[in-house]
């Protein structure tokens, strides 16, 4: 799109012009106001506050004192666990973020091919794990450390294991298991939006594509389907990113807090550790700020990649 040149008005200041415009569209502003007030109150202000707090020492119960960059310096130079947490978070994010994204999309694509009645049943089947709350706890039954835990019992019966393994307490298995659970539960909202996205594609485009020389289903997918459903893909991507970075609660429920030797310690956990357990809110805010920045960075990256699809 060629950029239009803005008309510069000289008869009034920019501020006055804005006010005038606002007055003209006051109904629109009024309509957005409820959301905007809540959004400011519960999202923008806390983010800003947390940013400010990250420069202080704040124990939650006494007045904070200003320490400038101390928290950040400590984070990067004097906190091994934080480095582990960054590493883990990135690893989780790279495995589960794109993993769940591709999984959702591919499954949505397959399911879209089914007949409507079967499609709704299959959709429910795949979507069920993510609506039914703490259903991932079923994994603790499969992988219980008890010798009567399902995997242990079968492993020993088949002679694969000689003694019960504490699956969720053993550094060797925690990470892999948590990734599996994450992928299993990740077919959530983004999966539904993808299915909806596939439905919105105008079928006449496929005909046009066929005329224009699309040779196979893959080309159809890449050149027609995906570009048409870019908004849904964007939403899915954002959900996948926040999901991947914020994937802490499930790990805590499965492994406990903190995980043995911090093998599955993510930035979220580190935040909880300092905010909730050690009452060091200033430090926790610094962690939160970094997490926030990381998410924004990823988001920008993904937006860029998505723009390339179909070109």
């Amino acid at each position: 799109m060629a950029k239009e040149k803005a008309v510069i008005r000289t008869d009034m200041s920019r501020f006055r012009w804005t006010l005038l415009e606002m007055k003209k569209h006051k109904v629109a502003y009024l309509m957005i106001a409820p959301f905007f007030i809540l959004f400011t109150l519960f999202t923008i202000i806390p983010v800003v506050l947390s940013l400010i707090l990250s420069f202080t020492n704040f124990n939650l119960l006494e007045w904070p004192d200003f320490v400038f960059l101390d928290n950040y310096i400590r984070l990067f130079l004097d906190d091994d666990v934080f480095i582990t947490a960054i590493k883990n978070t990135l690893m989780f994010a790279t495995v589960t973020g794109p993993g769940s994204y591709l999984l959702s999309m591919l499954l949505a694509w397959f399911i879209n091919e089914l007949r409507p009645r079967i499609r709704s049943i299959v959709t429910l089947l795949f979507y069920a794990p993510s609506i039914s709350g703490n259903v991932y706890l079923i994994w603790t039954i499969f992988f219980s450390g008890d010798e009567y835990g399902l995997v242990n019992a079968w492993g020993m019966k088949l002679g694969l294991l000689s003694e019960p393994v504490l699956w969720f307490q053993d550094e060797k298995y925690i990470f892999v298991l948590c990734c599996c659970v994450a992928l299993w539960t990740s077919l959530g909202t983004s999966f539904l939006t993808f299915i909806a996205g596939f439905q919105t594609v105008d079928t006449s485009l496929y005909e046009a594509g066929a005329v224009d020389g699309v040779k196979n289903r893959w080309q159809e997918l890449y050149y027609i389907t995906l570009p048409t459903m870019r908004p849904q893909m964007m939403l899915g991507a954002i959900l996948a990113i926040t999901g991947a970075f914020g994937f802490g609660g499930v790990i805590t429920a499965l492994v406990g807090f903190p995980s043995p030797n911090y093998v599955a310690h993510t930035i979220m956990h580190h935040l909880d550790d300092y905010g909730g357990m050690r009452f060091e809110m200033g430090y926790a805010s610094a962690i939160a700020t970094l997490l926030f920045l990381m998410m924004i960075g990823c988001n920008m990256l993904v937006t860029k990649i998505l723009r390339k699809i179909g070109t």
Partner: protein
Amino acid sequence: MTSFNRTFKRVLAMLMLLVITFTGLGAGTLEALASVEHRYNSDSLVRTSLDEIKNVLTSTSYSEYLLSYNDASMATGKIVLDLVNGIDTADTTATVNVVKNGDDLSKYLGQKNGATLQMPEGVSAILLCGDDGRVSFKVTVPASGLYNLNVSYFTGNVAVYDNVVDEEGNVVYENGIPAVNFDAEPTVGNYAAIERYVLIDGKVPYTEARSVEFTRVWNDLYTFENEKGETVQMLSDSQEFKDFVKAHYGDYENFRPYAQDSNGNELKPEKVLVDEWANTYVYDSTGYFSDPLCFYLSEGEHILSFQAVRETVAFSSIVLEAAETLPTYAEYYEAHGGDAAKYTGDAQVIVQAEYATTVSERTIYQLNNRSSVFSQPQDPALIRLNMIGGDKWEYVGQWIEWEVEVPQAGFYSIIPRSLQSYYSGMYVSRKVAINGEVPFREAGFVRFNYSSEWVTEPLHNGETEFMFYLNEGVNTIRLEVVLGDMASILSRVNNSLTKINAYYRKILMITGTEPDEYRDYRFERLIPDVLKGLREQAAELYAVSEELATLMGGKGSHSSTLDRVANVCERMGQYPSTIAGYMSTLKSYSASLGTWLADTQNQPLGIDYICVQASDAEAPQAEPGFFASLWGGIEKFIMSFFSDYDSLGSSEDVAGIENAEDYAIEVWTVTSRDQAQIVRNLVDDSFASTYGLPVVVKLVAGGTLLPATLAGTGPDVYMGAAQGDAINYAIRSAVVSLNNTNGDDNVGYNFNDLSRWAEDPIYAPLLEKNLIPTFDQVKTRFAKNAMVPLTLYGQTYGIPETMSFAMMFYRKDIFAELASDSNSEVKVPDTWDEFYNIIYTMQSNELDIGFPTGVAGSTFLMYQKDETYYDQGNYDYYLELFRKYYEKKGYDSSYANVDEYLNAIGYTYTDADGNVIPKTDGISINLDSDIALASFKEVCNLFTQYEFPVTYSFANRFRSGEMPLAIIEYNNYNSLIVFAPEINGLWEFTPLPGTLSEDPNTGETIVNNSTVGAVSTMLMMRSVTEKNALAAWTFMQWWMSADVQTSYGNEMIALLGPSAKQPTANMEALAGMSWSKDEYDNLFAQFNAVECTPEYPGSYIVSRYTNFAFLNVYNDGDDPVESMQSYITDINNELTRKRAEFSLPTTDIIKEMENFLKDEGIALENEKER
């Protein structure tokens, strides 16, 4: 590979066992122990010897017993036991008091209820038995036969005084009566049901005789405003209450005898124990047999004994006779005049079921039911106590009694409006007694069928609707929970299950918990009897399943539970090669059968009212029509917008206090609504009346304390905080200290010196009457170390609410079995040496032992060796160091001397005795000391070398007998009581095994069997002011007083059932709960030896890293010592960082000071290590 490993281990274990036996090491230690003293008095004197256990644990069931005396007939004669001269003194171990006619009864009976009493008519002497042993009687039987046991006992609490004993410990007799020492405190009953074993000639004849219960009788004490607006109190079996009920037959709307809270909800009346004499036959307490239990006595001399399990008891008569047989309904009907005696008038007497006169247990109370608009009475928004029973009235033997007055004698229909919506496809049973007697045989089990709605049907047994002959005037109707037709089925299933469990264990002892399917264990040769038994039980279960199907009119889920187990047993018995493969299936199936058994024994039934009317009259309508219920629903829905469900009522305005808000305190509790309501009621009843201070109790969600305190809207008192919270909040000045002597109100108040409030007009009268104890007085209510985790550098920041600690649970029956099976010495371990001996015995029988993992386990060992958890260096050294450093370096000259300066910068504090103490405790962790590392290694070895399980479900494995020994928190008692009723009486908990050490003074060997406790706590928050601080303290000490904690504990049990026994920290209150004598002795033996780990800034990190260390050892086979050492630096760094945050001396600072002094050439006189 694995099987080789196992064989190798087994051979090794056997070898070691042999070595131990032959060297006599085991035996030597055992003998040595007999004379060993227990430190802290924590010896449990009650460990029943295994021989004794064998006498009590019979495997004969009652049905087998009856079968073996098949040809014996019921006795014809009647043997009245002589309660004074008939006592077999040689075999009597319990405390015995004899009261003769004319003695002062009030000393003994009706303790705590203060009733005036008389001897029952025609009785010249009564016998009181303590809860500490057995009472035996000599019985001369004139003719052989089966006898029932008829007992008259006292339903109230009984006080039993100690007997006078001579030097040799024998009881002194005066005039043939045991002498009594009235000076000592008597043992008083604790309101629980009275429980005894019955022994004939020193042995329990069959398993059912192991638990014989005599129920208590309870009244409601109604306190309410009557029509004239006066507050009146009446007991539910008093004449005035009966008159009241009679005056309100059929009228449930206008006037109710219930007190109301500030919102208008009805409150439950208090329950009061009834002091009266009751007469009953001895029944099976599980309800499997509906007739009184029979005991076969051959002609000649016998000894009949009652062994105490629970409670003291007073007997006025014990008679052996055959119970009368009941007439059939037809006989009964004819005997009372048949059709001619039918009542034909149109009187309809409706008694509200909530106006019961007496009940058998205090857990049976009035409930609110909103499921039907026809429930009387009903309010769309408020709580109306409109029914009784429900799932509070489901255990065998529980009964409720009502009184009705009918216009003339005759046959009436009794029509309860009842609700049995609990078990679909099943019916529940009740026994009907009119005027104290079951009128005919069929009334022994009337049925209530399943229905999702309320029903009004005359009492029936599924075939006949019965009429009951009522006298003119007052009649009592009693309904008692029985198992009815299900009894025989359940009893057979129970027998089978017990046997199958025993077989399972026998197989387990051969195969271990991980049976190898491909190995030939040669079961046919090793355990042919087990295989035969399995086949028999399979046949038995199939038969039972058939019978059940006929009874229920078809196969259902019930039958399939039975069939599954039967199928597995059959296959295992027929094809021994499949046994290994079926073991885990059998385990899970029999567990589900156990659950089925426990569930089916429950017989819940709710009753709204009881209608008595002519048999021809139409029964009252049970449920409203469609439109009436629709309208009721709409009404409720609309009202739900206007009623306040969260507020618990408030007594903000207490009459007579000016500026009440200055004294008002806000208390937060994080429990369920019901529990909070109990707190509220206790405040209303007891706190308000005693102290008259305004209190608001609020129920909050967990995790709200921190934000609320942050926002400045927090409470004054917070209940139910975790152990670490006290110090965590305190170092951030959110909690105030309770014994602060430095005068700074921001730090805390000194509740040892209440004189600062003495002038206050509100507090003055309370203080004058000595109603508010001081902090030090309150401290004595708890275990001596309970304050440790709540105290930091001399300041205590809370008082303990609950306290739990690990004890050793073991299965008596399995120990007895092991002792008879193996050649080695089997004994419940008293020391760790014995514990190791037991490991070998257990493991050679493939049984597991439960043990706390990692540092949780090694802490016991450390404390038993007097090793501290944190470093506690020499105070003198640190003081000298601080002083010399600052004297050399110089300090703020505005302070008079260096000590004052040190105090001001928070490096030292002055304790209550005036000693200056440096704040150096907790500066670093002591888990790297030699003893600590050795202990940690020992515990790790238990898991790596001895393969103790790390994760397991204790209740399940203990129940199945796979894990007959476990060291675990004592409140697991609760879950066992409810979850595993089938092993009641087969297990016990005792203090931990101890470490032997030499007493430095006397040189004697002593056992230290300390355990480690954890507390939950009650905090006084920063928001208190000088004015209401004392009110807050008054509330805290009141809540943790013995009376209030006892009431709270009892209310909790009443509300949530027996599994809700509170592990209260108040030792007197805990003692007041319904423990059996043995349980009590063991529990308090351990209570005397509880250590608590202190809390310091940063201590949350310790458990985290020590857990990492343990996992490294367990998962990766790391060396325990190295693994632990690798984390010590991390732990100490965190401690240092946290201490620096709160300007406490840290290891870094100490090091700096030491270096400085070294450079300056100043030497220190004291040694660093203590």
